[in-house]
């Protein structure tokens, strides 16, 4: 199964698109016409269909099986959502149409905002961030804008070591210095240490809750109170909102800003790495410091506030060219309406139940890092592989041969050889039992010394292990025609 590159398949001058002729006209390119057409051979349509169909078959997706990638929430992607996003009334409207001609789009954004605010118990939401990390940026900018508005920019952001890399990167982007917060042996933030670190240089604390060890921060109210007492803001990374939607409202926990990955909790497809969408909800303290544009109620229906007006405008500006990921808004709202309040709560419960079931069933075969219960993901470390010669990487690759996508490896960084398993709520018990059986089998095989099964894995994949070092040392980042 070797698929050439399109550049190796195509022919110069060929095209798989028919176009009407341009008719007679006088060229007005002002002498800037491209001299040679781009060196990109074309293919006829049947060749293109085959090439990409074949390529697709080298991929693993949720549609093929369990995709237990912790922290990523790979759940079922309903096709209804895709269908709705393709309605011409959503897919074929221009971001700069007169607002009178897009009242349905604005109503949908307003609907989505209402759902997000109600589910989080927070008074305001910014829809435009294009992804989770972009939402973090939005949230931290709002925090910095609020601090500057009170003349108190501060310089430090506290993050736990278990945080997603985006958290410190975002804080740095906003000009903050990042300081670590220690964790307790039970996998949660050490409140005493945190309190001690909180002073008047701290702008914000960034926490993920449920955290990246798959645990709910049990001291979260105390943490929030301490943050607020220090005059700082509480930024919550909402990547794991899937575990608690409908069960707990972040607003009740004292959160000031939280992004929501629509592609995780609300099942817009991951698409091989995007596009995502990361709306941010805000507390009362931050609700004026939101980015432009946003939907408002005007005299003749919905309006769109696109530019600051007057000096009292607290917005920190525009994050993206237009209104955000409309296609994802449609999908997410479709998902929300399909589930309803009852279904969303059930989904969170089932996600947590599935993860705890995996943790309970595998205890004794693999080594859970912390005492249960966990939330929607079960964290294991590599203690059970000690002395077997099998690494977390080997173990993960061997899962491919069992027909599964591997779990998240080596993240979070706070346990050794981490394996973070997130089944999500869209797996059946029979499917989980089969998965558990496969993992038990692998763990037993590792302990029984069947190292060949691991060291060369995967055996039953489109490719063997790839040489990542070579890729980085001698970067080949594009095709070049052989001389």
């Amino acid at each position, binding site marked *: 199964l070797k698929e050439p590159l399109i550049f190796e398949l195509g022919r110069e001058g060929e095209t798989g698109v028919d176009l009407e002729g341009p008719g007679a006209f006088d060229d*007005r390119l002002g002498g800037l016409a491209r001299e040679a057409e781009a060196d990109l051979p074309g293919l006829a349509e049947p060749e293109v269909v085959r090439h990409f169909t074949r390529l697709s078959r080298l991929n693993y997706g949720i549609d093929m099986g369990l995709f237990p990638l912790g922290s990523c929430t790979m759940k079922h992607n309903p096709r209804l959502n895709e269908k709705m996003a393709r309605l011409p009334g959503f897919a074929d409207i221009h971001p700069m149409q007169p607002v009178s001609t897009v009242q349905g789009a604005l109503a949908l954004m307003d609907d989505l905002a209402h759902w997000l605010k109600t589910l989080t118990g927070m008074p305001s939401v910014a829809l435009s961030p294009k992804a989770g990390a972009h939402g973090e940026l939005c949230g931290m900018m709002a925090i910095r804008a609020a601090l500057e508005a009170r003349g108190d920019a501060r310089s430090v952001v506290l993050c736990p070591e278990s945080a997603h890399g985006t958290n410190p990167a975002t804080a740095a982007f906003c000009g903050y210095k990042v300081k670590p917060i220690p964790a307790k042996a039970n996998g949660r933030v050490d409140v005493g240490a945190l309190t001690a670190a909180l002073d008047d240089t701290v702008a914000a604390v960034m926490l993920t809750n449920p955290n990246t060890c798959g645990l709910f921060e049990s001291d979260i109210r105390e943490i929030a109170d301490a943050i607020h007492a220090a005059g700082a803001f509480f930024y919550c990374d909402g990547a794991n909102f899937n575990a608690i939607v409908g069960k707990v409202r972040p607003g009740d926990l004292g959160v000031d800003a939280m992004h929501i990955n629509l592609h995780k909790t609300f099942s817009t497809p991951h698409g091989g790495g995007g596009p995502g969408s990361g709306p941010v909800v805000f507390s009362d303290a931050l609700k004026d410091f939101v980015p432009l544009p946003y939907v408002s109620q005007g005299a003749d229906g919905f309006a769109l506030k696109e530019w600051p007006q007057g000096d009292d405008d607290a917005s920190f500006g525009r994050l993206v060219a237009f209104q955000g990921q409309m296609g994802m808004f449609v999908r997410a709202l479709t998902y929300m309406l399909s589930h309803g*309040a009852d279904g969303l709560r059930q989904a969170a419960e089932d996600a947590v139940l599935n993860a705890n079931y995996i943790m309970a069933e595998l205890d004794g075969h693999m080594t859970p890092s912390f005492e249960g219960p966990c939330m929607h993901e079960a964290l294991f470390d590599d203690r059970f592989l000690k002395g077997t010669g099998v690494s977390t990487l080997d173990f993960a690759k061997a899962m491919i041969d069992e027909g599964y996508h591997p779990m998240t490896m080596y993240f979070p960084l706070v346990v050794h050889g981490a394996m973070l398993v997130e089944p999500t709520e869209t797996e059946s018990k029979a499917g989980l039992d089969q998965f558990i059986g496969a993992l038990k089998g692998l763990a037993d095989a590792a302990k029984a010394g069947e190292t060949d099964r691991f060291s060369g894995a995967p055996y039953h*994949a489109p490719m063997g292990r790839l040489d*990542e070092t*070579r890729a980085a040392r001698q970067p080949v980042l594009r095709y070049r025609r052989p001389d």
Partner: protein
Amino acid sequence: MRYLPLKDADRSAMLTSIGVSHIDDLFRDVPDGLLNPAIDLPDHQSELAVERHLGALARRNHAAGDGPFFLGAGAYRHHVPATVDHLIQRGEFLTAYTPYQPEIAQGTLQYLFEFQTQVAALTGMDVANASLYDGSTACGEAILMARRVTRRKRAVLSGNLHGHYRAVAETMTRFTDDELVLLDPDAENPAAMLAAAKDAIDDRTSCVVVQTPDVFGHLHDLTALSEAAHEKGALVIVVVTEAVSFGALTSPGAMGADIVVGEGQSIGNGLNYGGPYLGLFATRDKYLRQMPGRLCGETVDSHGKRGYVLTLSTREQHIRREKATSNICTNSGLCALAFTVHMALLGGAGLKRLARLNHAKACRMADTLAGVPGVTVLNTAFFNEVTVRLDRPAAEVADRLAAQGILAGVPASRLFPAAGLDTLLILAATETVPDEDIAALGAALKEALQ
């Protein structure tokens, strides 16, 4: 609930295995009194009911296909072959994650490699990344990258850069100590605008950011500007918001660009009310390691077989954390796939023909507009978009035509609210515009301006 496979009997059995009696025992870490709040939202609905609701919302919008349509200004309506949407909906593409396990993600990785190659070829650059969120954030990232490359903080932004791109650049540098030199837009005299940008470059300048075709549709030869910038040690960032123009115009690389950023929506992707879109980002080999975003590279597997992996991730946040080149994690994978498929269908030859057809339509539109009393076409050289000066506020005219079912263009005031450009209207014509719609536009404008 049609998406949840567990039945109550499963749930009970699983709770028993776990050793708890109630689901809320698993939520025991939640502070007292905060579990299970009342949520004032409707319960689940049938697929039919949801379709009805969304369908009703969609019908409250005027879709571009419902009548004559001339909007552009950074988002363009092109015809996307049915094949593209079919292929991107294959479950193996749609429901895959970021290709962190390359052995079972060669589909995604290979198309990203093909995408990078296409973008590099179109822009005339050495390398391209695997996409960013959109053109505007790509532009902001380019300014930050220029700072890393030059270790200078002063970026000069041309006045005829898209108003939203300028605003995004302001936001992205708001809390850094970068300095943005923001020149005024000049729709009437694009050469003067370019000269002003050139004049603004000094020894402290990290980069000059210039768009072509610019936001008013004017074309620019950037060769002299590039020479001037390079002389001062500054980088040239070229912004292209209409990717189809690559088929007609001298590439930014050929005019001396150091970084080319763009909006790739035009190829393979629909209007979608502004998103998701596709950020293009390309540069010279020498700046590779300061580039933001994901990169896919060629390598071999354990059998020596050619394959692809994500690479050079030491630039990225998940490895470098606060020292990363950007905080970006997600790209626009599926939009990049749509671009790649559409571009594979077109080939260089097809893109050239498509671009020529766009230009022909725009020429016809410009000629029609020029014939309407009260309308002055400001462009001499353009691709598929022009700006006209009307004898009254453009927003009023656009609203009036919209009420008649004609979406006539973007008022410049919506992009530059404070620049005194109220009488300017920006209009695009792509291959999707039939000649009779151009005639209808002319007639309606004539009537409106009487």
